[in-house]
């Protein structure tokens, strides 16, 4: 039985949607107990985001929710009620880490801010995940994944000439915030191993989104470069470089270091390496159309994307092609590495979802289903906080849980 890195670690999670839950997912993945506090009735906003099996909306079967909340526990608490806040305070007293994604300062009106909870739990790590951070002139502005991508500076480069910049597919600003948040919180957790003290961690989604661009701001600070010329729509590759058609689609051809020699080997004619068009970059460019017609097209036309890329990689050229989401489950490498986990869920049934973000030999990732709304009310409130069944019914009637 492999051990779990976060066994015994308790997380209290007040966040919803993608950013906060994708952050606490790291903890659930590696064995922490993550207790989600969900608003009664509607629950986490991700429950109403879908996708749903058969496109039938169902708060218990939202694909986004099922993915982000695997192995977490769900307790419904109305934190707009004082009784609800009392429960959160008691749970915070026993937690190692609390996550919240309310607006800056919003929780202090309810006595659930860091200063208040620190009084109950000196070792608590209190993590706030917000659009722009707890400070600064824009801290109270509303934002979404799209507007964060725009303000982060990372979207600017992704545009064709004359057209609007576009974001990456999916909600990457939120997912990025989750990952940067996790790394940041681990800093506080490892600090606590030394000092025994908790602290507040202020994560700005904007800064997280900005931090994944490794190039552009640095290029400006070093050279004044704002952007290279915008390119037009992609045209097919020429002279052994770029996007080439094959039997069932397109392949991105990139010979790489020493590549033309390798290309000759791939084409089954190693002797071609001595051909002047293979040897001389300049000459090849001048005769690009003939080069393609004579050497590339006939060979590519006979082969599928998978065959071309496999042949190229076999000789060390990093060719690739764009897999559709519908092709991922059949990928032999993903299959060999268990990149997808099959999860059985009482309402959504059997689904395949992404598995481990990284393979750790001693403390591997573990799969599990996401909770039903309020599934763990009794376990946590009666088992952990010693409420009686009767008290639970009263709380339910009062709309607290």
């Amino acid at each position, binding site marked *: 039985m492999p051990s779990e890195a976060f066994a015994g670690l308790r997380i209290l999670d007040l966040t919803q949607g993608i950013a906060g839950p994708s952050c606490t997912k790291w903890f659930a993945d590696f064995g922490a107990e993550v207790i989600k506090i969900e608003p009664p009735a509607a629950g986490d906003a991700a429950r109403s985001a879908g996708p749903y099996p058969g496109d039938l909306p169902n708060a218990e079967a939202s694909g986004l929710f099922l993915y982000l909340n695997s192995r977490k526990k769900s307790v419904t608490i109305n934190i707009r009620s004082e009784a609800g806040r009392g429960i959160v305070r008691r749970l915070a007293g026993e937690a190692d880490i609390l996550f919240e994604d309310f607006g800056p300062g919003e929780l202090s009106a309810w006595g659930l801010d860091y200063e208040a909870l620190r009084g109950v739990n000196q070792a608590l790590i209190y993590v706030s995940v917000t659009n722009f951070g707890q400070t600064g002139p824009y801290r109270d502005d509303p934002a979404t994944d799209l507007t964060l991508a725009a303000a982060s500076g990372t979207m600017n480069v992704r545009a064709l000439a004359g057209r609007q910049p576009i974001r990456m597919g999916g909600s990457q600003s939120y997912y990025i915030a989750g990952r940067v948040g996790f790394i940041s919180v681990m800093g506080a*957790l*490892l600090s606590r191993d030394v000092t025994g003290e908790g*602290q507040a961690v202020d994560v700005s989604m904007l800064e997280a989104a900005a931090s994944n661009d490794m190039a552009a701001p*640095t290029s400006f600070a070093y*050279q004044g470069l704002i952007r290279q010329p915008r390119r037009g729509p992609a045209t097919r590759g020429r002279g052994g470089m770029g996007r080439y058609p094959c039997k069932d689609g397109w392949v991105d051809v990139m010979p790489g270091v020493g590549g033309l020699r390798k290309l000759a080997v791939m084409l089954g004619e190693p002797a071609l390496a001595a051909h002047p068009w293979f040897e001389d970059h300049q000459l090849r460019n001048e005769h690009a159309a003939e080069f393609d017609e004579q050497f590339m097209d006939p060979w590519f036309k006979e082969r599928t994307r998978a065959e071309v890329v496999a042949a190229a990689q076999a000789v060390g050229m990093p060719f690739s092609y764009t897999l559709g989401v519908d092709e991922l489950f059949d990928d032999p490498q993903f299959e060999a590495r268990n990149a997808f986990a099959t999860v059985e869920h009482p309402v959504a049934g059997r689904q395949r979802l992404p598995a481990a973000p990284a393979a750790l030999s001693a403390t591997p990732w573990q799969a599990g289903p996401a909770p039903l709304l309020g599934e763990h009310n009794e376990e946590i409130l009666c088992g952990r906080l010693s409420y009686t069944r009767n008290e639970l019914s009263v709380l339910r009637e009062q709309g607290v849980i």
Partner: protein
Amino acid sequence: MTTTLPLAGIRVLDLTRAYAGPTATAYLADLGAEVIKIEAASRPDIPTREINFAENDPGDCPWERAAYFHRLNVGKQDITLDLTNAQGIELFRRLVPLADIVAENYNPATMERFGLGYEALKAVNPRIIMLSMSGFGATGPRRSWAAYYPAMESMSGMASMTGYPDGETMYSGTGYADWILGSAGAAAVLIALYHRNRVGEGQYIDVSGREALLVHMGEAIADFSMNGRAPGPVGNRHPSMAPHDTYRAAGDDSWVAIAVRDEQDWKAFCQVLGHPAWTRDERFADPAARWHNQDEMRPMIEAWTSSRGHREAARSLLEAGVPSEPVLDPREILLDPQVRDRGYFEVIEHPVVGSRLYPRQVPAHYSAIPRQGRAHPPLLGQDNRQVLGGLLNLGDDELARLEEAGVIGSRPLRATRGGPRPHPFEAWRRAGGQIDDDYQALLSGAYGQPIGPNGDPDLTDRELRTSP
């Protein structure tokens, strides 16, 4: 109050090169680890030491002027050690018992070939954590396949979702997959350190860039699992919100992002644009109608956005509670009031290129860990004496012998392929690229201190050569 950083006392032997690997160790350096970057003098970090020079000028020592290398290696130490040489491997092996983490992003078979696979490292240091990063992972039939960031994005399905709805698929253009791979590596190492603090054992970590991308595609993969549906490139379209896109603002290639989340946003949006009647227009009656007619709305929205600056347009909408932001370019993000107020960029002085701005790799603010200044991006081999002399007790004679034999060094032993080339700025300008010649003055003004080549003008390659 904690006064030391979270990873103080943790030593990392960093064999990573290019983008993804150095990103992982940049996180560890920001959190306070002692990261010893190891380069071969015969093959310094490629390609980041070979491109993108300060002032677009390779100068006498181009490898010390390279922007991306500096960006990714802030706060690290640097030694040279050639692992294709038996003495180099032996010296590395002697460092392993003194280290906590070994990080690498070679092709999976390479460390084994050096005799430095996990089992070998574990034999000399059972507490060692080894981090391997690659495109396809260290196991499986395609473990030896090579991938730069576009290949990771295309072969994970991420690229298939990115692009205009009517066009080809696109890559991030920002090295997203490299960041994904490096950040997942850093996250995994932190998990392993936490475990080691409790149980005392190290472990082996194998991160695949493709898989680290999959975990950011949850809803798309769930949709395929549930409904057999695969998304194509969706541009800025949201599954339910509309309008939800970037719109042309006044100025050259300037844009503003707008996201209308619900009815309240929609009413406020129509009010701000001066078209309250749109709320009664049947084409936009409800979210579904707006979603279906979103292309029709673009010119109507751009009639308003294109007559004002992107910041001004966004501010008007934000004041009405509608999420909106200018699409910032690299200059604008460096000057952005929010980003500056929170100290996201740090000014660090480098001995060759002077003071420059570097983002915080871990931008979070901690209540009990004060922000600390980071060491400048390292010169090639600048810490040879301290690390090899200090940790391994090699004397000056021995260091000189190693340099003579090419095992260590402080300048590249061979010229780069084709020599270092500046960017063709003039050609880029003619083709519509944007280059601001005034960047040093602009940034110096914004950050209240000289930004640019105020480094020591006397530090020539002669001095660089004499530091062992």
